[in-house]
């Protein structure tokens, strides 16, 4: 189906199902219960899962397949966001023109930056991309303020032209009248599920993005990219020109990043310059490696993992801790609270840092490897691990450091 093998079709169907059921799956705890804090099924976070999933899938096409580690992908994220907000300002709140423009402008940016940066390999390439992205960020924050609105972030003002704006058109982002922030709520005996239009919009695009990446992974083009990662010399002497391949991968992944940036602005009509900072590039690298570089689902898992920590763990405060552990004797409660302070609330970064270390030490293949290990536990011994991820995992570079 869809030009995929049976195995891949099943895989895609599972991914589609999981994506569509996310609003239910991420609300495992009843509303009002002590564990409700750990629910993640609210629109903003679900949108972020999908959007950063797209970002990471795109990054993985470059890094996972070719091994070129770009430290500058945040620049494309930012360019995408700015494009969308500018379309709001000039045309109207329909997200479609903006998203198209986001993909085009980020593609052009990626072509220019990639064309220059890909003249070098290894860390020299990484630093070139970093330099371009940092220049973009620094300029966007200061000198380019007329274009980016600097520190405050680009937003729509009432006196903007918005030439296509109709009489009754919504003044929030929408797709032909389908307002992104609208939600349907379903209440099931204490469980509350929110089905948000914006999330489903992102989810459909994410599935398309995933499908495209699956096709690329299985295509001759994808094979060439993996060949570039493992032995570029051989590739050259086999009659293939590595440069256009890497450039194409760079531009494709840059367009993914632009799309993700555009979607960020489509969900929330503001584009901040911090999106272009190196920390944002670092984040997508971490997502990809954490989930499992070169695997299909890994980057998405990594993205979800990091965004979950950022949004859920940072919100845990003393009052909540007290609510959970208040029944304990005072001494023990204090001890637990003291230890918790290292990991939640304002210390959520520490938990994240520890997770990075633990995953990379014990699961060199990232979270996907963890999932596979668990999967193997449940399967009969001796049976060969199958499935598209096993294939992808095998494809990943198992060799030692160069």
């Amino acid at each position, binding site marked *: 189906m869809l030009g995929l093998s049976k195995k891949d079709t099943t895989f895609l169907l599972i991914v589609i199902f999981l994506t569509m059921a996310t609003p239910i799956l991420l609300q495992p705890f009843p509303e009002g219960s002590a564990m409700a804090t750990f629910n993640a099924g609210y629109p903003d976070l679900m949108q972020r899962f999908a959007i950063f999933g797209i970002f990471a899938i795109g990054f993985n096409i470059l890094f996972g397949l070719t091994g070129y580690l770009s430290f500058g992908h945040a620049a494309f994220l930012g360019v995408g966001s700015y494009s969308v907000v500018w379309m709001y300002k000039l045309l109207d709140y329909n997200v479609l023109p903006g998203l198209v423009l986001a993909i085009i402008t980020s593609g052009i940016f990626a072509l220019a930056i990639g064309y220059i940066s890909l003249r070098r390999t*290894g860390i020299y390439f990484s630093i070139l991309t*970093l330099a371009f992205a940092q220049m973009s960020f620094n300029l966007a924050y200061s000198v380019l303020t007329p274009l980016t609105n600097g520190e405050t972030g680009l937003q729509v003002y009432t006196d903007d032209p918005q030439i296509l704006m109709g009489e009754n058109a919504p003044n929030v982002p929408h797709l032909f009248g389908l307002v992104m922030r609208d939600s349907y709520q379903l209440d099931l005996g204490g469980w509350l599920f929110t089905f948000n239009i914006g999330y489903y919009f992102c989810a459909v695009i994410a599935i398309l993005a995933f499908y495209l990446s699956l096709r690329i992974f299985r295509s001759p083009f994808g094979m060439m990219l993996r060949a570039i990662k493992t032995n570029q010399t051989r590739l050259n002497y086999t009659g293939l020109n590595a440069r256009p391949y890497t450039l194409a991968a760079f531009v494709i992944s840059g367009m993914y990043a632009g799309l993700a940036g555009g979607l960020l602005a489509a969900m929330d009509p503001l584009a901040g310059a911090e999106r272009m900072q190196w920390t944002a590039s670092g984040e997508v690298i971490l997502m990809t490696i954490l989930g499992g570089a070169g695997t299909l689902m890994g980057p998405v898992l990594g993205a979800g993992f990091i965004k979950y920590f950022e949004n859920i763990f940072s919100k845990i405060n003393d009052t909540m801790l007290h609510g959970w552990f208040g029944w304990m004797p005072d001494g023990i409660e204090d001890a637990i609270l003291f230890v918790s302070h290292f990991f939640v609330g304002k210390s959520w970064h520490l938990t994240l840092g520890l997770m990075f270390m633990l995953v990379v030490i014990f699961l060199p293949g990232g979270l996907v490897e963890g999932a596979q290990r668990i999967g193997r536990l449940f399967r009969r011994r001796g049976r060969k691990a199958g499935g598209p991820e096993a294939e992808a995992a095998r494809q990943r*570079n198992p060799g030692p450091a160069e």
Partner: protein
Amino acid sequence: MDAIILQVLNGLDKGSAYALIALGLTLIFGTLGVVNFAHGALFMLGAFCAVTMQRILSASYTVIDETKTDFLGNPQKVDVPYVEGWFGPDIGTAIVDWSVPLAILFAIPVMLLIGYIMERGLIKHFYKRPHADQILVTFGLAIVLQELIKYFYGANPIPTPAPEVFRGSFDFGLLLGFAENTIIYPYWRMIYFVFSLVIIGAVFGFLQFTTFGMVVRAGMADRETVGLLGINIDRKFTIMFGIAAAVAGLAGVMYTPINSPNYHMGMDFLVLSFVVVVVGGMGSLPGAVLAGFMLGILEAFASMNWIKDIVPGIDQIIIYLVAILILLTRPRGLMGRKGVMEE
């Protein structure tokens, strides 16, 4: 002319910090082949050695002063440092005043130990792993280290002044025949510059003139062969990691009077020092030092007003711009070797 001399001075001193951090980064990379994203954190830990020293020296006991009241109207509690109690207020104050230089003595063993533990406990297991894994694990470590510091010392910068005698600045202009106040330069920054030259010289001398250094240099060039010769290169590399940590730490200690240390200062320097290392050329120690000073001076020049008038915002991007230009004209940076981290 005086403006140019002034910015060269400023650049040298910015460059000293870049060069010292890049030197340590290159040592670790060159010897161990590990991309250490926690190197900035080591710099930060060094700076907090100075803070800790200051805290230790001013460890106090509390005396209740009935004549005064605090902000709540209760009797004022006055902290009296133990050193003042022991040595009298004058000598006591002087000792606290000298906490930054004293912290050097404290930082060397601490940083060597931290480096040793890091290498044996963590980095060792990552020699044969891909660079991406090294980046992830050391980045995780950097976050953990800086969050721990934040937990115990807060997020706010902590003032760690230089000793009284080194405050103020020296008028170079008078020396060179310019008018008064044209070229002034703080004493502590001169000390920092000299200090960095001493450290750089010591590291180079150590590598050049000792047997230990010879083995390490040989190992940097060809690890396997040296291993085959029956030399326990791993042990030497552990020591090298300790030394690199100590270099970063000392750079941090001495930097504290220039800028008050805070928990994220390591991250602020991390990206720039990577740029410096790469511009210098991966694996080249002289390259790292040269690039550090060069970028420092260029950054200082770019902040001159008339240059900013011509190209607005140039001071924001100069380092990156130069990095791009150098990497495009010299594929492996200023002095990089072929085949190092090009895959």
